[in-house]
């Protein structure tokens, strides 16, 4: 399970959590999210996300 971070605002998509607010089930892989999906916060395009290593804080 990977985490992808929006380069614009810092929002994080965690594959293990999914994004149930928009019907994306926990465990949904990044590549299985539609290309027209946007950052739920700042509205940036999916292409503006980068994969990151995130240590729990």
């Amino acid at each position, binding site marked *: 399970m990977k985490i992808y971070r929006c380069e*614009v*605002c*810092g929002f*994080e998509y965690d594959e293990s959590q999914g994004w149930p607010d928009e019907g994306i089930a926990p465990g949904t892989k990044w590549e299985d999210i539609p290309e*027209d999906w*946007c*950052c*739920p*916060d*700042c*509205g*940036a*395009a999916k292409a503006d996300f980068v994969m990151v290593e995130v*240590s729990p*804080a």
Partner: protein
Amino acid sequence: MTAASGVDAASTIAVVGTGVAGTTAALTLRNAGFTGRVVLIGDEPDEPYRRPPLSKDVLRGTMSPGRTRLRAPDTWSQHSIELRTDTRVSGVDAEARRIIFADGTGLDFDRILLATGGLPKVLPQARGVGGVYTLRTLADVSALHGVLAAGSRLLVIGAGLIGSEVAATARDMDCAVTVLEAQPAPLSRVLPREITRVYEELHRASGVDLHTGVDVRELIHEGDQLAATDAGGRVHSADAAVVAVGLDPRTELAEHAGIATGDGIIVDEHFATSAPGVYAAGDVANHPNHVLGGRQRVEHWLNAQEQGAAAARAMLGDRTPYSCVPWSWSDQHGVTMHVCGWPEAAEDLTVRGEPGARDFTAIARRHGRVVGAVGMNRPAELRALRKVVSAAPHAEQAVLADPATELASLASLEVAGTSS
């Protein structure tokens, strides 16, 4: 690095401010190939962090403060950026190009970026009153979170972006929330009147006790209770209050250095101030507006980021004028809004979709030109419109309203040229 930049591997660039403008500038200096010394100075004790989640997830307690860190802790040393947190600058000598720190030590620089941001405006009636909070820093949000519990009563003074978000978050936490706004509507500084109505309805439907057109005459704290008396004589009582009535740009370093100020630090389209070698960016920078003409100061996250990057490149000799269009977003009561350009400057508004259903894009025109937009649930349209606003083309309302119109195509239709 060009010879024209006037800086080289022996130069020192100082950045004052560890918000997103300052930190982005420091990292951009490195990414652009600057090999001299970079010193990043901030008076907050925390490592650089993101402010947007403070009024939302962090206040609610659903995001730990550690998750707001802007970069991994080793980022700064990896980029040979000397990060000095908890460090107060007491003065800048622009002529001698020297910073004086509060502890009496100094730092010589070749270029300096003032990215000092701002502080919450003080409401004179609230000065020195107990139980009154503001929200700008991690320390602020931690203090406020500590007094909010389910059932507690929060009074929010000011329904701008921060006040409205704090009110929404406090409702999420099952607090009883009263909002007092001096203007006739919430968010009236950033949105056209038609759209502020959407927020009036949203706040009220979510259980916020919203009062608009109301000035606070007196605020009294007695026995753990706050009582705010409005100009109409009505008393609003609460356990705590948040004052969110805007931001004062931190211009004092520039002022004492004899640098031109006036609602912020005055800069040109390259973020240069009136003093050679001194630049300013972010919330504090008062810069030319390339679409509407005149000058402006923008207090949004993305603009601080873009300005920090552009100012860093300008300090290294890049002569590309800054022309980014403001972009912001707000989350309230589970609804996200995106804003681009200057919708508050609208002379007319074209609405696509249904504001009442919180699914719409509203396009603002001024002198027949597209100058801004606000939307809910339509981020792709808003992203297209940000490019359109940059070109500010003339467009008929019928064309803007037509669902068949590809908004992105408007950017290339006609470039308006210089602003009128």
